[in-house]
């Protein structure tokens, strides 16, 4: 299965790649009422980007990516609510570390397996995390969620305000850093080798490439990134609920990424934006139809539009040029 645009030798940032950032900053000034939603979108873009690295580039199918997101969210929340560690930088670092540790320990065993077994193991790890968060009520708050999360001003300077201005810019800055790292990784020889593994794992083995270790490394990196995204969610909403863990959030994230376009950096940008904005407008009025709609959308994308929204855009552009 070929997906576009990942073999590019030229790694310089093209002009159009600044567009999302310009748009994000413009949104900050033009849509002050939607900043909390904006922060949520930015958080999920980071989360989707982390999934894109392992699913889109390395070709690892996972049903449990929310384990890392949820872990990050809970680590940041527990540090703040139970141990009084309120510094946002420290929380992010701790969440990244926790995500990476869970990523390397589960990745090292999960990636030895294939097919259904691998799928099942990712699902079981996710379910296990949900079960722990649900049962360890004295630490996580269980089904009631973890409240009382406080976040200190960033660098001691920028306080998280009621209107979500600081939160939005904070998420934007963290996403920018994540994008920069992910982009470097994708355009590096390492990234090209990952794509090779996705396209033909047997051939990569045959030319002597260390397939397994590359997958473990990218899985760990992705887990750390998902952990950071989880911490951002905790910091901006100042609450952690059980809904960050389990199969449903993993499934929803898959929907977002597929909708945008899997295996392309900006698919992870477009998908969450469209999904969360649509959800914000539609799901309050028609919650059931919304759910039905995203299912239908997924089926249609799989059957008729493999590249997602960006893939459709590519196809239209190609037709115009011809």
């Amino acid at each position, binding site marked *: *299965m070929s997906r576009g645009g990942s073999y590019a030798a030229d790694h310089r940032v093209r002009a159009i790649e600044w567009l999302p950032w310009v748009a994000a900053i413009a949104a900050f000034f033009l849509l002050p009422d939607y900043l909390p939603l904006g922060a949520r979108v930015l958080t999920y873009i980071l989360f989707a980007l982390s999934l894109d690295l392992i*699913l889109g580039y390395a070709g690892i*199918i996972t*049903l449990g990516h929310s384990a890392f997101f949820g872990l990050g969210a809970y680590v940041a929340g527990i540090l703040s609510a139970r141990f009084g560690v309120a510094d946002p930088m420290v929380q992010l670092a701790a969440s990244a570390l926790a995500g990476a540790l869970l990523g390397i320990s589960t990745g090292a*065993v999960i990636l*030895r*397996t*294939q*097919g*259904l*077994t691998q*799928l*099942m*193991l990712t*699902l*079981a*790890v996710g*379910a*296990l995390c949900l*079960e*722990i968060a*649900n*049962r360890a009520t004295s630490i996580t708050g269980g089904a009631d969620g973890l409240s009382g999360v406080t976040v200190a001003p960033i660098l001691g300077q920028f306080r998280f305000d009621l209107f979500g201005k600081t939160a939005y810019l904070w998420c934007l800055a963290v996403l920018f850093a994540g994008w920069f790292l992910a982009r470097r990784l994708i355009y590096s020889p390492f990234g090209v080798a990952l794509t090779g593994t996705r396209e033909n794992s047997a051939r990569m083995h045959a030319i002597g490439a260390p397939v397994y270790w590359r997958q473990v490394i990218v899985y760990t990196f992705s887990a750390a990134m998902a952990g950071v995204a989880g911490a951002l969610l905790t910091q901006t909403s100042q609450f952690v609920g059980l809904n960050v863990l389990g*199969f*449903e959030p993993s*499934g929803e994230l*898959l*929907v977002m990424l*597929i909708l945008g376009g*899997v295996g392309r950096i900006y698919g992870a940008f477009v998908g969450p934006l469209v999904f969360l904005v649509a959800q914000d407008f539609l799901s309050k009025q028609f919650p*059931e*139809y*919304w*759910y*039905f709609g*995203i*299912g*239908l*959308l*997924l*089926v249609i*994308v*799989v*059957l008729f539009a*493999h590249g997602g929204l960006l893939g459709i855009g590519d196809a239209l552009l190609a037709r115009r040029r011809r």
Partner: protein
Amino acid sequence: MEALLSSAASVAFHGAAYGMVLYVISVGLSVTMGLMGFANLAHGVFAMAGGYVLTTALSRFGVPFPLALLLAFGVVGAASIVLERFLYSRLYTAGELPQVLFTIGLVFMAVAAARLVFGSLQQPVPLPDYLTGQVSVLGRDFPAYRVFVIAFSAGIIAALWFGVERTLWGAMVRATVDNRAMAQSIGIDTRRLFMLTFALGSGLAGLGGALGADIIAIEPTYPFEHLAYFLIVVSVGGLGSLRGPFVAALLIGVGDTACKYWLPQFGAFFVYAATIALLLWRPAGLFGRRA
């Protein structure tokens, strides 16, 4: 000691009933995954549909219980043929990711549709009088419904095993699981075989969902909540095998019941932990053929 023995017997009995239902639901998944290599995460949808067919037939139309079970099997099996012909068959050669995504999409749609039509509450199961009492077995009293579930499932399983091991259709299925290209080249119509087997597997899932409606509650989130268990049964048991998932289903049924009875504070923790450990030890499952 007497108390422990009595609770152990009760756990074993309830666990066996649960395990039997899990097996009847999941065996179709094992066969379709082994036969077609299709990662069908929407299998729980068929089980839920069977449950809704049964409860609707019982409470709205007053259909007798045995007929309602048959109806669940027939309706779900027939509906699955339509799905297989128009949607599933397009993705047989598409690879794992599109199959996973497509079936997740189906699950989302089914959950929403169930909530729209039936509301988000658990469906009541009006059991007939002859299934509500107690039955005395070996000097102990057991709920009649669960005795019926175990006996009925055992009958189905015997029929299924006979069908797969002793009939021509079963031989064709086994041949195709082993080597699809070879089966095709000796003239087995694998397309038709896929369709029939898929319908049978889905029908069995519907039957299992209906049969176990009083054990695994019928509610809209059913396909999400129990998906992990159906997949565990198949992956721990081994793809394409009949006996493996049976052992796995009984282990999970009894293990899960025991954990919930003696260690309720841990919930399903041990089931998942044991699954992970087991799959690391034997990635192809207990009875899997491909290591």
